[in-house]
């Protein structure tokens, strides 16, 4: 039997993919092309005059030690956000999956944070950890620890990671829970009858069966950490202290929208574009091979 769908009309398949292509061109290729074009110029903010500099914007960027350091910061930040939000979500999903009474209520509560806008999430965490007035900072001071993320880069990083991950946990939780519930109970019961412990059942049956979900979430979370977190960073640390929380996308935002340096901002977008393309290729080439569908 022929598995592939065969279209009688030559043009119908093109027509069917046309809307998707159009959206991709208008919302992805066109802006990306614009960014590449603009990265070759230094314009004044009002667009009155513009200087062609070729690769000058990139030279300027990479000669800056702080920009080079931002790569490391971005790496640390995205790994921490992805790992913590995914592992915490998986843990919650496993717990929620076992609950029988009132599971609906638990699930609803766990999904809530996703509805919170990044900037609001940032402000919430900032309130709790404000060195003077925050409740958690106060508790820490009672324990003898002086919290001040305005001065300590490590604390600032911990705070933006916590706020960013917290927001993403709900999303991951939803997918993990759906994945868990799709695993046939009979398989797990059979393993239990054979005497396999909970952890053994989890690592040898559940986790491999969850791998498609996990892989999907890995891609989504890395993209989230790369692109959607500048609201959190802007409200909590503004990239400080001493650029310790300046990730690449925040620098694009800060230089473009605060500093009005559109040339540099465009060049940084191009760098990010390349970086994410490479990451996506790596993920699909190497990690996806370990996924069992």
């Amino acid at each position: 039997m022929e598995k592939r769908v065969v279209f009688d009309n030559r043009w119908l398949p093109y027509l069917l993919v046309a809307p998707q292509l159009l959206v991709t061109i208008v919302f992805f290729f066109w802006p990306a092309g614009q960014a590449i074009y603009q990265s070759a110029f230094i314009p004044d903010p009002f667009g009155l005059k513009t200087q062609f500099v070729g690769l000058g914007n990139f030279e300027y960027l990479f000669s800056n030690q702080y920009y080079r350091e931002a790569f490391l910061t971005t790496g640390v930040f995205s790994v921490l956000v992805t790992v913590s939000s995914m592992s915490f979500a998986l843990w919650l999903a496993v717990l929620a999956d076992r609950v029988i009474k009132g599971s609906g209520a638990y699930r609803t509560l766990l999904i809530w944070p996703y509805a919170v806008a990044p900037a609001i999430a940032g402000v919430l965490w900032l309130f709790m950890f404000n060195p003077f007035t925050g409740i958690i900072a106060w508790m820490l001071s009672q324990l003898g620890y002086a919290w001040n993320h305005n001065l300590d880069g490590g604390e600032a990083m911990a705070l933006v990671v916590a706020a960013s991950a917290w927001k993403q946990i709900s999303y991951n939780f939803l997918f993990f829970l759906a994945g868990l519930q799709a695993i046939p109970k009979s398989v797990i019961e059979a393993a239990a009858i054979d005497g396999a412990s909970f952890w053994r059942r989890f690592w040898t049956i559940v986790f491999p069966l969850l791998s498609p979900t996990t892989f999907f979430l890995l891609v989504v979370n890395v993209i989230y950490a790369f692109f959607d977190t500048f609201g959190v960073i802007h409200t909590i640390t503004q990239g400080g202290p001493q650029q310790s929380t300046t990730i690449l996308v925040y620098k694009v935002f800060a230089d473009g929208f605060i500093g009005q340096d559109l040339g540099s901002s465009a060049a940084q977008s191009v760098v990010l574009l390349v970086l994410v393309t490479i990451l996506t290729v790596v993920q699909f080439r190497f990690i996806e091979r370990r996924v069992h569908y």
Partner: protein
Amino acid sequence: MKRYIAAGVIAALMAGVAPATAATQVDFWHAFTGRLGELLDEQVSKFNASQDEFVVVATNKGNYSETLNAGIAAFRAGEQPDILQVFEVGTATMMAAKGAIKPVYEVMAESGLPFDQSVYLAAVAGYYTTTEGQMLSLPYNSSTPVLYVNKDALKAAGLDPEMDLSTWEQVGTALDALKESGNKCPLTTAWQSWVHLENLSAYHNVPFASQENGFAGLDTELTFNGDVQVKHIETMGQWAKDGKFIYSGRRNEGGAPFRAGECALFTESSAGYAGVKKEATFDFAIRPLPYWSDVEGAPQNTIIGGASLWAMAGQTPEEYKGVAAFFNFLSSSDIQAKWHQDTGYLPITMAAYDATKASGFYDENPGTDISIIQMTGKAPTANSKGLRLGSFDQIRGVIDEELEGVWNGSKSAKDALDSAVSRGNELLRRFEQANK
């Protein structure tokens, strides 16, 4: 018959609509929310009620950076408002954009309304005036840093609450005593770059940047790594290490702990007055910004922060008339005096200052005149007229980062300032390139 009724209805409608469309609409984008937004709306409706030729429509566009962004984006789309409120940091950006703005002196001259630049406070107007003395934007909300003192905290530390705190040396002794008595936050600050570098430089009559702090040209270089600045930042760094100066953030995050009574001394804008007066449950005083007594000529005058109003290019002559009428209204002394008294911002004209003095406001609210005395005590020099630097928002970001390095002990004051100067100069060169 039906036709006549329809015609009659249309005629009646047009008659009803006509007076509303006759008034020219003047769009005004600003960055005020909360209490300041209410006070601004009050001024606008007063203006609209005072005449029927123009209608000013004021719209909030977010914070200062966002408002400037909105104005720039709108200009690029050909939809710019008539008036845009721009913070002092954006002044050089606006000035360099010659085709995007219409200078205030031109707007006023064309309108035929009386306009005399000399009625504005020199120290304020100077910021927005070219080296040839032409006013480019209308001063509106300007403030200057002062020292807020929690008198109860001084008393608790065994100090005289009325003690002299006009020099940093005296502040140092007060901090020692406060720390000794177990105070957790002897000193904190808002806007560290503005208060402790920009104003510090002007106040001690040392340059912050070459070319008259950027007034005389785009080819300016930062010079705030001089002896006076290094000494000040070094001292602050030592205080930070000893727990006498507590860093609370880049903006005015320090306001909350001061108003809550946790911090004893607080350097912040004079416009912080409204908040302190409303929330502080302790006895507080406003004092002049301290200076180093061993610097010759100190104290000079401090410089301003806040925002001014710019007329955007590309509008109709009718609209510019409306802009001029509104600017004229805002500069009138009773409107200015009320604004000054309500907000803690400086009065922009001498007449408004005199009117406030005559009303006895300063006697009832001691300390509210310190900001203006501090700014007008001496005629501004090339070093204390103000700052006009491109990409200044980014440069402040660089300064914030480097100062944080001093406060957390990872950098010496000299290294941090040297590095801030060289990184800032790079940004200046880029700005120069973009505005060739």
